């Protein structure tokens, strides 16, 4: 099957987000789609899958025009979307999720044995082993990432009986993949599939993509911010800028730097700002001793001094996020002590009173109130500072939020428009703004640049360096090892809930960190 997009156009309220974009997607090929946030790549992916309706242009399958008006139309044509967060039904089993919407069974009555067989076939196509299906393969390991019978690391499919809600991110994504296969997908659209994955899981995922393209002749569209993986995985890469196609090049003949140049339109300077040295006499702001929470955080100890940026690196599930949340008091701790400026922290209110702020990992779920205005979001953490007899001092609020929006270069339709109208980068900057207004002493930043365009990413990196230079203690966690190494004075590597080791700035590369993190 050969899918082609012919001069696709789409506007929102008069603003074009896609302008005459054409792509050719032959079977068995992986096509990369890169561009800054707002360049139109996600919109294009959604047009292809029927989630967004194009205003203009045609979709051709083997030269014949087809109409894709709903996701169902796309499915009918063999086009499936696999998202970043996983569009799965958490309450159902893996097997149910994979076979969801495929019908099957006789007279609507399900045939358990046949379904299990089908699951095995699908997993085999993806090149994954089914862990203890029917108990027959029980010898094969201790869990989803167990060690195979031959001492080799098996690449496992999720346990078909497991509840999807209990699975970690990477396994959920595998469920979506298998579902795409179950629907007999001919073209799979991957929208930021690796954004939430640690390097090892991302590498596995991309290996699966290559395998399926080669063995099953499935065509892929890979939308991603990680340019190195796009170059390594794709056959062809298209760069979008401001809704237009800038160029389409063979992956073999390009580099991440060249792609970046095409994306931004201007040459890119140094990637990470050099942090100012920490002063000799800088006091310890954050001290954590013996911090524990369930199995996710085990006996974690660390210190961050004023003006210091400490990075937390580790694979997915290593406990980075959980550590930050427990430090901030967002989750209950089982043990250990956290002090900020020498005072013990209990709970969010206590942490905030001592000058701490948390940038949570997911801005949509934990960070912003998307239906409320940008200004209200900026003001939310410091409401009590501008309260008179219960009323908001609105003049002062407008000044403060306005100045913060300006300092952070938050650009959008206006401070009174809902935060969901902002681009990802501007949303993320708003999240920082909320804490900047409080003049924090300690900033805990989890995934500070997830799903953010290149320009905003650089601005956020600059901001973190600036804040540290002003004396703020910064603890930053990221699944992007390069980012942690590039930003921090010191990097702590987490593994299975513990701090496995530490590297001073410049003494380690991504490989060293990942080795210590437990990547094999």
């Amino acid at each position, binding site marked *: 099957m050969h899918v082609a997009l012919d001069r696709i156009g789409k506007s*929102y*309220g008069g603003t074009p*987000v896609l302008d005459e974009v054409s792509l050719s997607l032959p079977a068995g090929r992986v096509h990369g789609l890169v561009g800054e*946030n*707002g*360049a*139109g790549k*996600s*919109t294009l992916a959604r047009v292809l899958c029927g989630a967004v309706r194009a205003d203009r242009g045609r979709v051709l399958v083997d030269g014949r025009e087809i109409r894709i008006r709903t996701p169902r139309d796309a499915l009918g044509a063999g086009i499936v979307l696999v998202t970043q967060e996983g569009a799965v039904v958490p309450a159902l089993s893996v097997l149910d999720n994979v076979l969801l919407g495929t019908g099957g069974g006789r007279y609507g009555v399900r045939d358990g044995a046949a379904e299990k067989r089908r699951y095995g076939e699908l997993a085999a196509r993806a090149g994954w082993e089914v862990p203890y299906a029917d108990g027959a393969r029980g010898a094969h390991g201790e869990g989803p990432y167990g060690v195979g019978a031959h001492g080799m690391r098996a690449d496992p499919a999720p346990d078909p009986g497991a509840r999807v809600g209990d699975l970690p991110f990477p396994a959920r994504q595998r469920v979506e993949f298998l579902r795409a296969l179950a629907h007999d997908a001919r073209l799979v659209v991957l929208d930021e599939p690796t954004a939430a994955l640690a390097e090892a899981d991302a590498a596995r995922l991309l290996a699966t993509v290559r395998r399926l393209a080669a063995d099953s002749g499935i065509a892929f569209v890979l939308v991603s911010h990680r340019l190195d993986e796009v170059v390594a995985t794709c056959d062809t890469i298209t760069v979008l800028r401001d809704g237009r196609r800038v160029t389409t090049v063979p992956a073999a003949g390009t580099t991440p730097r060249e792609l970046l140049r095409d994306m931004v339109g201007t040459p890119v300077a140094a990637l990470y700002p050099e942090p100012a040295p920490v002063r000799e006499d800088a006091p310890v702001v954050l001290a954590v001793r013996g911090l524990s929470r369930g199995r996710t955080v085990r006996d974690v100890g660390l210190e961050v001094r004023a003006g210091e940026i400490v990075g937390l690196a580790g694979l997915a599930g290593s406990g980075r996020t959980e550590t930050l949340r427990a430090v*901030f008091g*967002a989750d209950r701790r089982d043990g250990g002590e956290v002090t900020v400026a020498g005072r013990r922290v209990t709970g*969010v*209110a206590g942490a*905030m009173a001592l000058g701490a702020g*948390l940038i*949570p990992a997911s801005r949509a*779920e*934990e*960070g*912003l*109130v*998307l*239906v*409320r205005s940008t200004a*209200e979001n900026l*003001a*939310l*953490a410091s*409401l*009590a500072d501008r*309260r008179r007899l*219960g*009323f*908001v001092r*609105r003049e002062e609020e407008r000044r403060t939020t306005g100045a913060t929006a300006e300092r952070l270069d938050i650009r959008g339709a206006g401070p009174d428009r*809902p935060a*969901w*109208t*902002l*681009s*990802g980068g501007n*949303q993320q900057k708003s999240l920082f703004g*909320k804490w900047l207004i409080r003049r924090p002493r300690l900033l805990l930043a989890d995934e500070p640049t997830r*799903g953010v365009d290149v320009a905003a990413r650089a601005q956020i990196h600059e901001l973190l360096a600036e804040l540290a230079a002003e004396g703020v203690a910064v603890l930053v966690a990221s699944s992007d090892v390069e980012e942690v190494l590039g930003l921090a004075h010191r990097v702590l590597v987490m593994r299975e809930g513990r701090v496995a080791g530490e590297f001073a700035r410049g003494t380690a590369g991504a490989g060293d960190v990942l080795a210590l993190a437990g990547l094999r």
Partner: protein
Amino acid sequence: MAAPLLLAAALSLTTDTFLTSGNLVNVLDQAVVIGLLACGLTLCITCGMFDLSVSAVLAVSAIVAVETTRAAGVPAGYAAAVATGALMGTVTGLVTVASRVHSFIATLALSIVYRGLAVILTGGAIVYPHADQLDSFAELASPTVLADVTAPSLLLLGVAAVCWLLQSRTTLGRSIYAIGGNPEAARLSGVRTGAVRVITFALSGTCAGTAGLVMATRSGSAQANTGTLLELTAIAAVIIGGTSILGGEGTIWRTLIGVLLLGLISNGFNLLGWNPTYKQAVEGLLILAAVTLDQFLRARGGTRGSTA
């Protein structure tokens, strides 16, 4: 917001009586009880919660108003009704927040408890103030104050104004919106989500208690099944006004428009002399039409969610 205007225009053209001050005053007066309930519910729903106990709170408050009047006089009766609403709302809030049961379920269960309490208080009978108190007890319901506008109407407008100030000008209002829009983001920003939720329920209870008082003074009596199912009509009014049932969005003045729309529908039926047998069915369909129209107009203005 197009629906009430269309309806009002249609009624002014098709009837001689709609656009008279007497009729408009009448529509407002009849909307008072639903309006008071809807004010409290707007706060709850924007905070991401339902309060299905309001009509039961209304009944208990009405009964307490009568009983206290019998025991301690009219002013004490009035005060007791409002205080009962506030107290019961606080209890609803504490139970809902502490039990962590979804507010829809928790308040549904509590509404049954409160109805039961009303039965216990009255022994299943209708209660009246003493005969010599009846006139002064009905004082609130009868007088017309400003150009025929009744005291209960002014009470509703006053409560709505306070709620509007609360929503748009106070830190409490901001917290309510934030919790309704994203409770986890609010909590991680230092908003005391539990306390705010309890206060919101307490305010809703206060509104319901006030509504109970209005009802008792109008009928000069109270009974255990007073106002049954009014909570659903009030929720309908809030939703017609465009408040998101997902929480985080919605304002009082829009709710008032929703309340008036419902009032206009039944008023129109009377004025046009249509067979009241069809009233309920038409009411339901008009609610559906109004909400659909509102949603359609909003969708054209830009869809919610999704970053590019």
